[in-house]
């Protein structure tokens, strides 16, 4: 599903490379944690996966797309096959939960008559069927993140990328969102989750990639 081969990333303005010579492989139906100190390069790694940045050298492959050689019109095609969620949810504040989810379908040219049922189904999947008509400000942080996850899932992507999805949540909400991600993974979606929450990582017992200063220093799958 996702393969990094000797990948390095140097930002034009950065004095040192953000990622050095990173190689790993994430297979079908994997759940992978991405850990490391602040500034280690977790976000950069995820950005390479959804083609918001290009590798300076090496090869990045996601669902068969070669990120380094992606043309401008191929980027939207890749993104339709990926779900991405962030720490800050990125919801549109002036639309309801259902409208936020529907937005992702509308702007990618889904057939209008299929939209309501698909939105209802995915909101039900994240446990928010009752809150479909709520505005983001009327929802808790955990609920907002569920809306964001619903939006990421509504196109049925084979891969879900999450950059510190629980970073703004308290412990209870964190466990709820994490459980939801596990359920999604159990249904066959690859999940890559960057996090600072080492307690969560330890308790979960999932595959973990640790990055330090842009280098991959630990891969639990490799050592196992």
């Amino acid at each position, binding site marked *: 599903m996702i393969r990094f081969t000797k990948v390095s990333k140097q930002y034009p303005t950065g004095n040192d490379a953000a990622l050095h010579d990173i190689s790993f492989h994430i297979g079908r139906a994997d759940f992978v944690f991405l850990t490391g100190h602040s500034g280690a390069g977790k*976000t950069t790694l995820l950005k390479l996966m*959804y083609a*918001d940045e290009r590798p300076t050298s090496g090869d990045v492959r996601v669902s068969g797309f070669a990120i380094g050689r992606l043309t401008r*019109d191929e980027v939207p095609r890749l993104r*339709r096959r990926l779900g991405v969620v962030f720490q800050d949810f990125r919801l549109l504040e002036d639309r309801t939960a259902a409208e936020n989810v529907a*937005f992702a379908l509308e*702007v*990618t*040219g889904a057939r209008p008559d299929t939209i309501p049922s698909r939105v209802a189904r995915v909101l039900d999947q994240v446990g928010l069927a009752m809150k479909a008509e709520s505005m983001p400000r009327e929802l808790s942080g955990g609920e907002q993140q569920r809306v964001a996850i619903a939006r990421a899932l509504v*196109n049925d992507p084979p891969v879900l990328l999450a950059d510190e999805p629980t970073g703004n949540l308290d412990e209870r909400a964190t466990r709820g969102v994490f459980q939801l991600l596990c359920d999604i993974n159990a249904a066959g979606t690859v999940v890559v989750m960057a996090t600072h929450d080492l307690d969560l990582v330890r308790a979960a017992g999932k595959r973990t990639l640790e990055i330090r200063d842009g280098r991959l220093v630990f891969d639990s799958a490799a050592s196992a």
Partner: protein
Amino acid sequence: MNLITREALLAFRRTRTLSILSVTTIAFALFVTGLFGLVALNMRTALRQVAERVQVVAFVKRDTPSQQVSAAMSDITVFPEVLDVQYVSETEALARAQRDLTEFQEVYKDLEVNPLPPSIELTLKPAFRTAASAAAVAERLKGFDFVDEVKYGQDWVQRLDTLRDIAGLIGLAVGFAFALVSMVIIGVTIRITVLQRAREIQIMRLVGATDWFIRGPFLVEGAIKGFLGGTLAVILCATVFGLFRSQKMGLGLGLQFFGAGQACLLLIFGVLLGFGGSLVSVGRHLRDESVTKGLRRTTDRVLATKPR
């Protein structure tokens, strides 16, 4: 596309103040352009009316046989510059002088012999009402041996030429300047709209909307704003024009307003400006912004996160 129009209208409603501001700005820019157009239009009409009086007169030697003159006249009629040729006999010339030059009426009345020679009067086709053409025609007329002298008001025809050149140049320069200014202003207002909707654009890109799909609503929005601004500008021009004419400052006579075609041109210009301004602004935005820009480091993220 239905959705694109809906999003454009939604954007309009959400950012009402800004939308009204952009429409007013476009309207004002086009209004100034329109006013200038009106001035240019009327100046051109006025110049054309003056130019109609460009005439070449060939005075004919006395006692020239009339067959010779009429034979020459049929030659002259086919000059490419000539619109019309009139023969003015001595008697007609005198009658005209007595009618037009009232100060000299008494003098002319008492005359024993008619001092005025017969003449041939040429009117030129509109395209040839210039000093150069008039001079060329005059030169050719002098070639006939029965022609005594040729006059065509050399001085003022030349002045008319200069006036025409200056008017044309100023028109071009000012029109161009205002079009440029309008374009910049529209670009800026659309840029503000784009920035205001940066989050929406960011999410569209994140979920895989194509660039053209993202541009669509902005282009429609820009075109609508341009159309509204253009309409407003035509109305403003008509109002100012009406006020100006009702003042009857002696200039009121013969002033003309845009024809339907010219008014449409202003509207089309508005639509093109709105469309072009949007295209440039959104294009730049799509080129510059990455999906996650501004949310790079933890500190940025903390700042970007709203307190709950």
